[in-house]
């Protein structure tokens, strides 16, 4: 694992990701102000010792709102990827190992899903069912869960394909034959032997998809279909700051924009570093040099 952190871009990625995660986890303790507290007497103040990132049009502390805004972004990113990984791995692994009719049905369905553009699909569905909590039988689905579900479903295709590719190769490996000769059941081989050998690219893909989820959440909040105001979100803050682009209050849009960019860059760098670390061909090359 040490070789991974010797690379500078991997360290930067990890620091950025850790920063975003810590903001989200520790928001109640590290945010200096209440992110919802309106103080119209102190609106649109530039960065100062009291407000490091200034205040917005309602006098709310931008730093506090950015810290709290990490929550919806990361929640959507991480939970959507969780859905995508569970669904994608289950479909890809079984299709690649079982083959036959199930393989065709599952992978063609996945191809169909992959043809849906993420943002348009999310905007369309949220636009139709509305941004309010959605009651489904005894449960009510808050808007964020809807977005998580929508994004998560569209995460299934890339993760299913990556798993499927690995499962196809690994299912024909000699150790799978050997395990059959040793009396292992097909189910045990699928989960116990094939799955662990297909996981590396899935981990990489999942890390990169978290970044996509952050962008999708920000975009939806920007057009008003994500986190409902006045609750803080990075996309919503950018949306509020549109009015001030030409009037000089740069802190209203620079800081939320940076929050989005840096967290996305962080996950991308981390994903790339993991890819280099986990890719066996790369790994072989490194060991020859070392």
């Amino acid at each position: 694992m040490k070789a991974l952190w010797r690379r500078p871009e991997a360290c930067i990625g990890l620091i950025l990701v850790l920063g975003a995660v810590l903001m989200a986890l520790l928001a109640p303790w590290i945010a200096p102000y209440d992110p919802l507290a309106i103080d119209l007497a102190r609106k649109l103040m530039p960065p100062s010792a009291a407000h490091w990132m200034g205040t917005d049009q309602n006098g709310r502390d931008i730093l506090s709102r950015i810290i709290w805004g990490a929550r919806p972004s990361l929640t959507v990113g991480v939970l959507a990827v969780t859905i995508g990984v569970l669904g994608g791995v289950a479909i890809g692994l079984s299709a690649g190992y079982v083959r036959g009719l199930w393989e065709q049905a599952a992978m063609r369905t996945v191809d169909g899903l992959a043809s849906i553009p993420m943002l348009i699909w999310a905007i369309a569905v949220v636009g139709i069912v509305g941004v309010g909590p959605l009651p489904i039988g005894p449960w009510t689905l808050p808007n964020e869960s809807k977005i998580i579900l929508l994004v998560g479903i569209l995460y299934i295709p890339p993760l299913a394909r990556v798993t499927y590719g690995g499962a196809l190769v690994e299912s024909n490996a000699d150790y799978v034959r050997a395990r059959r000769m040793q009396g292992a059941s097909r189910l045990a081989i699928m989960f116990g032997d094939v799955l662990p050998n297909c996981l590396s690219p899935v981990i990489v893909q999942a890390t990169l998809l978290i970044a996509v989820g952050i962008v999708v959440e920000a975009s939806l909040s920007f057009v008003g279909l994500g986190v409902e105001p006045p609750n803080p979100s990075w996309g919503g803050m950018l949306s509020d700051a549109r009015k001030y682009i030409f009037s000089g209050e740069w802190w209203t849009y620079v800081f939320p924009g940076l929050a989005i960019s840096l967290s996305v860059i962080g996950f991308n760098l981390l994903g790339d570093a993991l890819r280099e670390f986990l890719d066996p061909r790369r790994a072989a090359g490194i060991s020859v040099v070392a």
Partner: protein
Amino acid sequence: MALLEIDDLHIGYPTDNGVVELVRGLSFSVEAGEAVGLVGESGSGKSQTALAILQLLRPPVRILKGAIRFDGRDLATADERTLRQLRGSAISMVFQDALSGLNPAFNIGRQLTDVIMAHRRSSRADALKIAVEALGMVGIREPESRLRQYPHQFSGGMRQRVLIAMAIACRPKLLIADEPTTALDVTVQAQIVELLAGLRERLSLALLFITHNLDLMSQVCGRAVVLYGGMLMEEAPVAALFASPRQPYTRALLRCVPRLSDAPGAINSIEGAPPVAGRLGPGCPFVPRCALQVAQCVERPPERVDASRRVACWRAEG
């Protein structure tokens, strides 16, 4: 009653133009504790026979006809649960590609104990003891520390030893070794063959040694079954087979074994091309390459039994 009895085994797969038969009416048996060599060139059906014993033929290839009895039990009609219990415990198999026969994701201790625990109700600690013992038996030094290592930390010969350890850990009655040395270099081949011969004696297991290498076979086995084109050509004690082969194919095959006394560069081969499954008539598959052929050879040759030998040839002297 023999430990393993194969009776009129036909293996094949259906195509649009009818069934292609890879193994055509093969019968032989292996006694408990006996080492039998199954010899033949590529495509003679020897590996398919091994897979058929474990009921692990890859569809669409399947058993068309015949019986495989192990310990008196018909394996062709056994259910999957019974078969899983037999595989790896009563019947084990070691095969050719030792280099990739181990899962790269787990250390070998985990893989050994998985096999042991699948067949014996034992704790992981007990399984580890059995694993250490098995590794010791196949001649791996410092087995305790080797258990924590991963497959890529082992050489090809060592990996084959680990696979053999996995195969014998549950004390099988029958070990099928399908070209276990093909992927290894010659010096290691000899070690592995020696190891198999030693294990057979120590654990009194029956060994079905599948190979195209007559030399290696003669070092381990007491009896040999020669296959060609999916049919039995000759069966005889190894010494008798080498001394006086009776079937034309066996004779041609033995002439191909290189000897030190041969002139440099001289390598004998059998004239003609090996048979193609599916394009064979009912007669002897060796006919197109046989110098002794007669008109009768287009009919299936009878297997002539003579004391400890069986020969399938119209011309074989009785």
